[in-house]
Every structure is written in C-alpha cells, then in structure tokens.
C-alpha cells in the first residue's frame, strides 16, 4: 500500500499540449507567460493545500490547471508541527503544518514521476533553514526533467528558523535570492510574506537580486485559544491564516507590488471565484493561485477557468493581458 503509488491511468492527460491546440475557434485565449513559464491558463494550485498533486488528480484532471506549485521541499525530510494543525475561523482557517515534507530526494523519487505526465506546469516550492539549504535544493533541481520553475518560500510564518527572517527584511531577501539565482537557470519566483510593514521594499529587493516573478501572499500570522483548555488551540501556538478572510489584504499587496516592480506577479490569498481572480488580475497579477478554496470547493479551478472565459467573451476581449493592471489606470484617469 504505497501511498505515493503513481496511477498512470488516472484521468489526467499524458500529452503535453496544455490545451493549446484545443482552443475552439473564437474562444478567448487564457494563456499567459509567468516569469518565463508558459501557462495554458492563469490558474495555479497554491503551494501546500495541493500537496504533490496525487490526491487532487483523483478529483479532477490536473491539466485543467495552468500549473501546480508543489508543497514546500527542503533538502532533508521535515517532521512538521504537532497536532492540532488546523482550525477554522470566520471566513478563513489557520494551519500550522510546519512545512512537513518528505525531503528533496524522496520528492524526486516518489512524487515527481507521477506529476510528469500530468499535462500542467510544475513549480517546486523551496524551503530551507539557511541560504545554503535553499541553494542546495535549487541547484539539485536545476535541469531536472519535469520541473518548470521554482518558488522560494521565504515567507512561511510557521517555521521559527529561516522562513520569517528572510522575508521580512530586504537585505536577507536579496541575499537568499541572489545566491539561489546563481544555482539555477529555472524561472525563479519569490514568495512574499504579508507580515511586513512595507512589502514593496522586499519585492524590489527580490527583483533586483534576480527574481523572475513574485508570488504573494503567504498566510497572515495568527492564533486561536481553546477556552476550555485555556491554552493555544494549535500545537504550534501560531498558525497561518488563509482563505477569503485575507483576500482584501492580499489584493492590496498585489496591487502595491505590481505597481513597484516590472517582473510579473502571481496573486493569491482567499481567491474564491472568477470574480476574485479578475480583481487580482486587474490589480496587476499575471496569474492567480488557489489554496484554501480547494478544501471547500475542489471544483474551484474549473469554475474560475470557465468564469474567466465567459468574462473575456462577454467583454469581447481577446486575452487577459488586456485587463492586467487595468485598475491601476482606470479608464478616464489615464
């Protein structure tokens, strides 16, 4: 009973056409280029909630996604935090998984092979406790078949060492990004933390250090207390808040960062519908990722895709590019 047994006959397509050839005449074009990665559509699975894709492929064809950002990978396996790791809050949830992961080599051996035939782009989220660890993962993944890009998670609020420190300070951001940049030719996204006073300074530091794109936002740091036990509810005390509750915060940061850098932005945080996705794109995102939404609606990526197509068709727009960032210069104010 190998939990990672790769079921090639699942309902995923094995050809790599990404749907490019299937465009029915006149349907608008959802393709976008994110940080050098050609995506069939701008909807990605956010890192974490989607794991390594094994499970969600049982619910839908992975090729309907523009890309998958796999759960954070570190050089060695990480145990993760003690339970409880989850809690629900109004409009959101806290998680304190603690970046549990099987480590780089297990990922390459057991997870990546199953993803290769999935018909979507694979971006590996990289975590580490030191610059060297980030660099080690990046250099090992460089040139590995089936990997289309890296996302450096310098922002996870759950891990005491590493994570928090890099992403809350331009200098250390710059340091880790430029070091990793030297190790890889793969498209490099940097995932930013919202737990900062000025996200644009971090964004600019990452851009100057050689990032190809920016992902934002990671979770907001939060906690709950179990009043019966009179103690923190989560095993790790603190956890990351995600879901619709954080959407306005995420949208504002995407807006600010898109206005501050030239590289493309992958927007995420509470996206729950095509209308939400459109808000992110109009704020300046090139593409969007969904995380928490998958938990309560596994059909969300399909619904967003249909919704974006309908919107473009109704508005007689040929492609999403036409509305990217448009809210930063609304008609009449240009």
């Amino acid at each position, binding site marked *: 009973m190998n939990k990672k047994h790769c079921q090639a006959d699942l309902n995923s397509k094995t050809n790599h056409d990404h749907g490019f050839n299937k465009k029915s005449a006149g349907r608008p074009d959802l393709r976008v280029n994110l940080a050098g990665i050609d995506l069939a559509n701008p909807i990605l699975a956010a890192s974490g909630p989607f794991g390594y894709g094994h499970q969600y492929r049982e619910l839908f064809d992975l090729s309907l996604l523009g890309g998958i950002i796999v759960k954070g990978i570190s050089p060695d396996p990480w145990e993760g935090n*003690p339970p409880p790791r989850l809690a629900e809050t109004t409009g959101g949830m806290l998680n304190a998984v603690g970046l549990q992961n099987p480590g780089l080599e297990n990922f390459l051996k057991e997870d990546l092979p199953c993803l290769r035939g999935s018909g979507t782009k694979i971006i590996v989220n990289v975590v580490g406790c030191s610059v060297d660890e980030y660099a080690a993962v990046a250099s090992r993944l460089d040139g590995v078949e089936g990997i289309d890009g890296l996302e450096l998670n310098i922002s996870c609020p759950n891990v005491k060492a590493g994570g928090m420190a890099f992403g809350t300070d331009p200098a250390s951001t710059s340091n880790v990004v430029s070091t990793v940049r030297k190790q890889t030719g793969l498209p490099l996204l940097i995932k930013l933390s919202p737990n900062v006073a000025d996200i644009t300074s971090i964004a600019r530091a990452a851009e100057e250090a050689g990032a190809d794109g920016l992902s934002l936002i990671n979770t907001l740091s939060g906690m709950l207390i179990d009043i019966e036990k009179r103690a923190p509810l989560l095993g790790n005390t603190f956890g990351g808040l995600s879901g619709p509750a954080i959407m306005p915060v995420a949208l504002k940061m995407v807006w600010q960062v898109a206005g501050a850098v030239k590289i493309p932005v992958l927007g995420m945080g509470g996206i729950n519908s095509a209308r939400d996705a459109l808000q992110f794109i109009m704020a300046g995102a090139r593409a969007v990722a969904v995380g928490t939404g998958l938990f*309560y609606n596994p059909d969300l990526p399909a619904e967003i895709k249909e919704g974006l197509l309908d919107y473009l068709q109704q508005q007689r727009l040929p492609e999403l590019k036409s509305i990217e960032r448009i809210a930063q210069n609304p008609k009449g104010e240009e």
Partner: protein
Amino acid sequence: MSRLNKQRGAKPKQENCLVGNKQIIAPGYCRLTLHAPLIAREVYPGQFVEVYMPPEHQPMLPRPFSVYKANRKTGEIVILFEIKGQGTRLIAAAEAGASLKLLGPLGNGFPELPSGAVLVAGGMGIAPLVFLASSTDLPRTLIYGAPTVAQLACPSSDLDMPGLTILEATEDGSKGDQGTTVDLLLRCINNAGAVFACGPCPMLQAVKNISARAAVKAWVSVEERMACGIGACVGCAVATPGGYKRVCKDGPVFAAEEVILNE
C-alpha cells in the same frame, strides 16, 4: 487479517446527494439518510465522508463523518452525528429533499471481522462500529458506553443484528452496567478474536493497553481536524512511532500499536 478495502484505487467521488429521512434524536443528535449511490456502492466500514457546507454559510470547511450504514442496493448511506457546533448544526438543518454535497468514500476502513470480535464504542464512536458490526454474521460483541443514557444516541433498532451481543455501560448507571466501556472490555478481552474501537482518546488509549496486555490485536479509529480530507494538506496529523501520519488517508483506522494517542 486483510483490509476490507484493499482496492485502494477506489477514488473518492464528489456527489450531490438528496437528503432523505432525517431524525433528530433528542437532545442534540442527528441520524441523516442521504442518497449517495456512488459512495454507497464502494464504501467499507470505517471509511468516512466529508459533508460540504451549503453555500453562503459559515463555516466553510467540510465536516468528516463515519458512514454508519450503507445500502448498496438503494444507494443510501446514513450518518449519525452529534450536533456540536456550527457545522453540524447546519447539516442537521438540511431538510428532506434538499441537496448536500459529499466527498467519499475516504480513508482506510477496518479489516474484516474475525469470529469473536469485540467492538468498543464510546459515545459517538458507535457510528463506524454499527456499519462494521453489520458486515458479518459471525458471533461478535459490541460494547457501547457513555457518561449517561442521553449520550447513548444510537437507536436500539439499528443495533438489532443476528449474532451480535450487546453490552452497555453508563458512568452514572442510567442504562446498562454502571461503569465504562473499559470495565466491560476487561471482562471479555481474554476471549476476544480482535478488538475494534472508536471513541474518545483516553478510551482508545485504555483499549490499546488492555489489548496489548492480553496480546489481542486491536484497531482504533481516530479523529483529527481536517481540511482536504484526501491526504493532500497534511493537516490531520497523528503521531506514530514513525513520524506523523494523516488521519484522513493513512487512517482513520490504525492498528493500535501504530498510533501514539495523547490527551
């Protein structure tokens, strides 16, 4: 002892289910019948379903429930649950004829019952064990306990099965023996073919200890808060000697020695 659901490939299905018969069992329990043919066809005892919330409601995350009964022919499944918080309140409010979205079957169920199996249910732990008890006609014993009779929510008609011996206990003596399921288990552990338990953590821990001492194989169904329910998010971790495992995918049924139960 082979797993009933050895066909691990059985993929979870999202199903829009018609709500059928609903019984609110005073005070605060609900027995809900759902027309879920895809799930009913494949589910095995010990597996569970995630029930999604109706849209535009708080909370958002689906709620996990063991399958309490499944009828392959009629395509119906039944869940029995305590109305505890917002989520269960909403589900219990669904009226016959309404539609609820389900995901299932999920998780690893119980292995096949050997002759002389002892099933130990603490409170709502009864839910998966009723389904399990119905999976064989071999002689078997169900130990069912709770603090008071009010928490013995399972309608007794649902427990009327050939070959099933029922022992009940309440801590206040309001039904059955005065005492706990653990007291009853101690009485019959030496003749047990194997033990299958579901209930609060301290009970499971006692079941584990008692079975180990008697060298009887024991299986426990554990609970943890869930998000995805399918093994992707690693949110429902339970400690095991070999590191954290996922209740939703590696469990909820574990060999007793496989899990570290706390509380």
